């Protein structure tokens, strides 16, 4: 039960995505309530996590269902509509504007901001990339690109940030750094919805967890509970399996 007054930050109702006989998402409903700040979405490869993100961020048009942000219905299939309602999103492989500088990447996302340069510099400072502000985005390392992408998405002051495997392909020290930033941002009131394979990171950060398997929501609840759920464990390890020790590992 939500103690937070007001509609959920993000609500997905009966979301379905199917193309050509393949069903990527089947009747998925979930709700991110305002009294929490960091949610996780996990599941084996191919379970539909990225598809769900693509729907919410407007890159795919779902076959059925509805998405609401802060109670307002989202016009599907339009990345710009999603942005205007407050959805921000990072990508598994960071997508920066490669031929622009780091600072210009942020400024490109600054429409509507009263002091764009100041805010851009604040965000760069937060992710400790100020020294690279003039560097060409295309020449950064993966980890650095992810940081810039995070800063850029924050320029829009989104209602919720969808983080698509932000820890993927990045070495452990950088993952620690990122986690630190997420905690700081969370304290400042920013909300995150994480898709992650790094289950330990999920366990450390997330308050509530949703589990997808083959396009369906198979579990949701407080993070630690869900991670011990036998159904979840078997989904990760493949069938059949009995209950396993705590800490489901992605064996795929």
């Amino acid at each position: 039960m939500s103690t937070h007054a007001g509609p959920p930050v993000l609500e997905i109702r009966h979301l379905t995505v199917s193309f050509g006989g393949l069903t990527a998402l089947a009747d998925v409903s979930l709700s991110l309530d305002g009294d929490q700040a960091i949610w996780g979405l996990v599941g084996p490869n191919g379970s539909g996590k990225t598809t769900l993100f693509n729907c919410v961020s407007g890159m795919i048009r779902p076959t059925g269902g509805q998405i609401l942000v802060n109670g307002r219905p989202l016009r599907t299939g339009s990345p710009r509509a999603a942005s205007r309602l407050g959805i921000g999103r990072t990508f598994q492989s960071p997508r920066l504007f490669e031929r622009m500088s780091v600072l210009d990447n942020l400024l490109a996302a600054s429409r509507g901001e009263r002091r764009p340069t100041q805010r851009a510099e604040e965000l760069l400072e937060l992710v400790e990339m100020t020294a690279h502000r003039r560097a060409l985005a295309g020449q950064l390392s993966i980890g650095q690109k992810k940081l810039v992408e995070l800063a850029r998405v924050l320029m829009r002051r989104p209602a919720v940030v969808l983080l698509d495997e932000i820890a993927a392909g990045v070495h452990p020290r950088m993952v620690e750094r990122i986690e630190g930033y997420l905690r700081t941002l969370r304290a400042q009131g920013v909300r995150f919805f994480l898709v992650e394979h790094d289950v330990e990171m999920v366990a450390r950060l997330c308050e509530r967890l949703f589990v997808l398997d083959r396009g369906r929501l198979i579990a949701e609840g407080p993070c630690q509970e869900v991670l011990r759920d036998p159904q979840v464990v078997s989904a990760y390890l493949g069938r059949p399996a009995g209950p396993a020790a705590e800490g489901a590992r992605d064996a795929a």
Partner: protein
Amino acid sequence: MTTIVAGRPLQRLLAAGRGGTLSERTPAHLVTLGLVTVALLVAPHLNVNSYHLTVLYYVLFYAAFTQTWNLSSGMTGYLSFAHPFLLAAGGYAALFGLHRGLGLSAAIALGAGIGLLAGGVLALTSVRARHLVFGFLTLFIVMAMEIVAELWTPVTGGVSGLIAPKFTSFELSYYLTAVALLVTTLAIVLLRSRIVGREVLAIRDDEDVAASVGINTSMLKALLFGAAGGLTGLIGASHVLFLGSAHPNNLFPLHLIVLPLALTLVGGASRVWGPLLAAGGYTLLTEMLRVSAPTIHLIILGAAVVLVARLRSI
């Protein structure tokens, strides 16, 4: 004052993007632009013969024609083969107006106006079709428009074209083209110094992500192609007055279809001066080599495009 006159939307559109690397040379660009303006004003009055003046005109013409392409296609990454369509729209419209009794200024304005509408056609296409498909379509658009020009005899004079009544003067065409060139270059400098310029370049780099960070890609594409259309229409009106006629061979020759693309890419798309320098170099080169082959244009431009495609990221 600006708030009252221009209104909040325009003010927000023109928000300055201080600090980004795109804007740091703005003062230098503006100074250079001032110097170039002075130079262009002075040049016709120097004691040179009419051959040199003609070459000077063509430098200006190719430079302006290229820079308007740079403003739209170079900045957004929507490479277009249909730039001659914008030129021809302006040229035919201006002469059509003159033949129907319009005054000179009105006819030129009509040229710019029709050019703007033509730019609107490209803008609409760019909203419906992405980079590659758009480029492909523009090839068919320009070929189709050439056929229209050859067949629509009541308006365009068909295969014979339209003759310019006796308004032609070198100075008029020269200054009109110079104005178009300077305005376009100023627009590029201003774009680069502001947030909106970064938004446009974001369209070029990754349009989906641009949309997902809230950039209004459709509006920006429409604005730029419309503006380029109007400016190129103006150049077209000026050019037909210089040539003395509007004819499919003058307005739709094969080399004009690829010229702005080649010169912009060689000079650097979205750069302020590169494309202009490339245009200048190109004009001088073709003038020097003209005696060896009339199709020298195609050889140089073709080779340039191949080289650019091989060596540069587009």
